[in-house]
């Protein structure tokens, strides 16, 4: 295929970045389309909601921002997006050694692109030199950024033609439920998710959608304690043997 970006270049590192990035982008396509529809239905002006692609570039935080605009206060909306983005601190911590010997401009520009997929790709390329790693990171990062923005925009065009009877307004909630399940890797994670959902349900009457934050904080605390208990048990078992 002439338009396949992986073949559009003869540079091995660039084609390698495309070849690894494309399969990771495919599962994000329905998410981007759902976000596009949510942008057209957002209580925010459409242009402002669309601008999250350019200035935020974080799918879950974007979806929360445009969906919560209808019901939440300014503070709850911003705080929820902030909490959703906390996981990036982990990515940034894990990748920071690879940034220490990079030029200053890249240390400022690089983090903007740090989405889950880019972390997954770039954190496992320790064999690349600083310069090659930077090129790999930026190539994949810019690919994700451009593809994401185009696909979300496509979702906006498609979304406005879909009848409301299809109830696409429910799609973001279903999307988030699926994302939770796919993100679960251990039992403390399940404890965190169930606690977060349960406490949020009990706290639905907290004003200004504050139940999200109450649920989130309870969920993190429960997950933390479950993780602590699990590693204690593992230590005890190792000590006993």
């Amino acid at each position, binding site marked *: 295929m002439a338009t396949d970006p992986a073949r559009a270049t003869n540079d091995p590192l660039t084609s390698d970045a495309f070849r690894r990035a494309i399969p990771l982008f495919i599962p994000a396509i329905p998410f981007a389309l759902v976000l596009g529809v949510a942008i057209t239905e957002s209580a925010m002006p459409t242009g402002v909601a669309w601008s999250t692609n350019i200035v935020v570039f974080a799918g879950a935080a974007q979806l929360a921002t445009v969906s919560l605009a209808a019901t939440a206060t300014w503070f709850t909306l911003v705080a929820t997006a902030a909490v959703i983005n906390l996981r*990036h601190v982990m990515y*940034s911590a894990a990748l920071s050694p690879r940034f220490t010997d990079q030029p200053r401009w890249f240390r*400022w520009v690089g983090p903007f692109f740090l989405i889950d997929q880019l972390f997954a790709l770039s954190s496992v390329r320790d064999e690349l030199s600083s310069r090659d790693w930077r090129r790999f990171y930026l190539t994949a990062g810019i690919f994700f950024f451009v593809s994401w923005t185009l696909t979300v925009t496509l979702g906006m065009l498609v979304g406005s033609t879909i009848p409301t009877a299809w109830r696409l307004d429910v799609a973001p*909630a279903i999307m988030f439920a699926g994302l939770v399940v796919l993100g679960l890797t251990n039992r403390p994670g399940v404890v*965190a*998710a169930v606690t977060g959902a349960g406490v949020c349900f009990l706290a639905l*009457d907290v004003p200004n959608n504050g*139940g999200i934050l109450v649920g989130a904080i309870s969920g993190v605390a429960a*997950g933390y304690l479950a993780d602590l208990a699990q590693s204690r048990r593992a230590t005890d078992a190792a000590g006993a043997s």
Partner: protein
Amino acid sequence: MSTAAALSAVLAVALITYGSRAGLIVFLADRPLPVSATRALRYVGPAVLSALTVNLIAGGKGASGVEGAEVAAIAVCIVVAWATRNLIAALGAGMVTLWVVLALL
């Protein structure tokens, strides 16, 4: 939401997002996070996204905003996501369940 409120909210989210990605790289290069912080951060994703799911289903109307069809759709989505580890399949199954239950009710 007014244009000014929406714009300032988006800008705040943008700055916070960038800060969470860049903070440790730009300002604290090579200073590792304490173990307890890493342990807690690991559970931020599941906790906040599941709380957000519940909140969006309620749609700002408290527990009365939760429709049976939505609960069925979420339940099917969870089962399919668990069984297939495939987000597209989970989303599709959830939406189909929503349509079927809405048509039956």
